[in-house]
């Protein structure tokens, strides 16, 4: 395993290259494009035997990838924000058709007003789409999760979205340990399961009567639920195989006696880690819960780690209008009946607004103060 200094985009591209993707469908969008550029260079340099399909929109990019996947090819795409929204229709097709597509998403804020800055709103908009969603804390997470995503997707026949934040991760250099190609090839055996067969033609995505639709959705949801078992198992195997430390569903940091727990997903986890260390030095019993998997929602894994907590501050770099932060809403729903917990959802860092250690510290103080309204999301940094 060698160590390199690469951006998040390069980590995503390298993960896809190590997985030996066979088809890449892509339409240029910022900040996802460097991953595509890197992959196209691998193809041009003949380091990767992959068909790059250039299309006229993100909708077509995912449609091309979906068709390739139905034919049995290992397929990948990258996008973000408006591109992901344009893909939405096909995203639901891909999930309903149970195709093991992996997609990198360089999270960016949604228009309007137009923004090119990081935020998780685009991923959250796909929360009901049936895609498994990973959130990466750093560039190491991106490469680890991308490789694992192919294994999980192909095992469950369910698409996986690997989220990493635009610029904060996509354009920032970090040290990354790169797994050996031979080992990755063994870890990701190519097990083609084509739905299209020219010798036995069938109609895919046929009109389905009420007699069958519910059953299809039930089976799809069962696969999503099963992911809660598959994801930690694959992470464990990966860690063993590559001597890595990748996260399963969730990961606790300094939770042993923590009375106050910060919960977050994505790049803000590493900022919160710094604050936890700082406050621990001051003697405050505070810990951090990193949520890697948002869909399916690992309710039990999260609650297990919140058992000893009194205060919970959930950091959301997204807003579901009229409801609050997506992660906080899910955690509040999951903890129904756990009256000992004071859960405060915090909205911060929208559209690239600064959300450093100071902002998270403000959120922590706010949760413990008496004027904190537990029934609505608090906005930090206004």
């Amino acid at each position, binding site marked *: 395993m060698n160590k390199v200094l690469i951006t998040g985009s390069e980590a995503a591209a390298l993960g896809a290259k190590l997985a030996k993707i066979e088809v890449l469908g892509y339409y240029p969008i910022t900040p996802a494009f460097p991953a595509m550029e890197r992959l196209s260079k691998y193809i041009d340099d003949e380091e990767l035997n992959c068909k790059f399909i250039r299309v006229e929109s993100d909708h077509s990019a995912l449609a091309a990838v979906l068709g390739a996947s*139905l034919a049995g090819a290992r397929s990948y795409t990258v996008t973000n924000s408006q591109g992901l929204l344009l893909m939405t229709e096909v995203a639901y097709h891909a999930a*309903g*058709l*149970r*195709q093991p597509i992996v997609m990198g998403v360089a999270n960016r804020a949604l228009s309007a007003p137009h923004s090119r800055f990081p935020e998780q709103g685009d991923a959250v908009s796909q929360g009901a789409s049936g895609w498994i969603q990973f959130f990466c804390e750093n560039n190491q997470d991106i490469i680890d999760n991308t490789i694992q995503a192919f294994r999980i997707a192909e095992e469950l*026949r369910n698409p996986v979205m690997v989220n990493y934040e635009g610029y904060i991760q996509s354009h920032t250099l970090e040290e990354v340990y790169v797994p050996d190609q031979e080992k990755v090839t063994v870890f990701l055996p190519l097990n083609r399961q084509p*739905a299209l067969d020219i010798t036995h*033609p*069938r*109609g*895919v*995505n*046929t*009109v*389905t*009567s*009420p*007699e*069958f639709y519910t*059953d*299809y959705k*039930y*089976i799809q949801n069962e696969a999503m639920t099963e992911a809660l078992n598959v994801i930690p198992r694959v992470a464990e195997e990966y860690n063993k195989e590559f001597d890595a430390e990748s996260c399963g569903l969730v990961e606790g940091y300094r939770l042993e006696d923590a009375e106050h727990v910060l919960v977050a997903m994505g790049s803000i986890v590493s900022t919160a880690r710094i604050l936890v260390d700082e406050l621990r030095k001051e003697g405050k019993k505070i810990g951090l819960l990193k949520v890697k998997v948002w869909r399916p929602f690992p309710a039990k894994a999260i609650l297990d780690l919140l058992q000893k907590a009194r205060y919970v501050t959930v950091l959301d770099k997204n807003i579901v209008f009229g409801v609050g932060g997506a992660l906080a809403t899910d955690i509040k729903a999951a903890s129904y009946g756990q009256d000992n917990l004071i859960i405060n959802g915090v909205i911060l860092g929208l559209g690239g607004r600064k959300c450093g250690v100071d902002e998270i510290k403000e959120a922590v103080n706010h949760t413990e103060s008496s004027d904190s309204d537990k029934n609505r999301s608090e906005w930090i940094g206004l």
Partner: protein
Amino acid sequence: MAVKNLPIVPSGDPGALAEASNAAIQRIKRPEITDLAKVNPIVLLYCPDGAISLDENGILISYKLCKGCGICAKESEGIVMVPEYTGPKGIF
């Protein structure tokens, strides 16, 4: 309730929707004549799709034309609506 045994990728045989004689997916129930002697021929007029006809053998229902509305079973004895799909059944 048993979950139906369905293909992982939602799919069907070619032509299963339109041309095939079992193109009945729009119908949840279909009318069946249980007692021909009791069927009131007025249902020939009530059927909005002209799916019911009369020949030398008696009254016939065309499942190619029937959309499963159930008017005939409501208006006449000797016809009952039966579920189109029963039990864990898969591809149509």
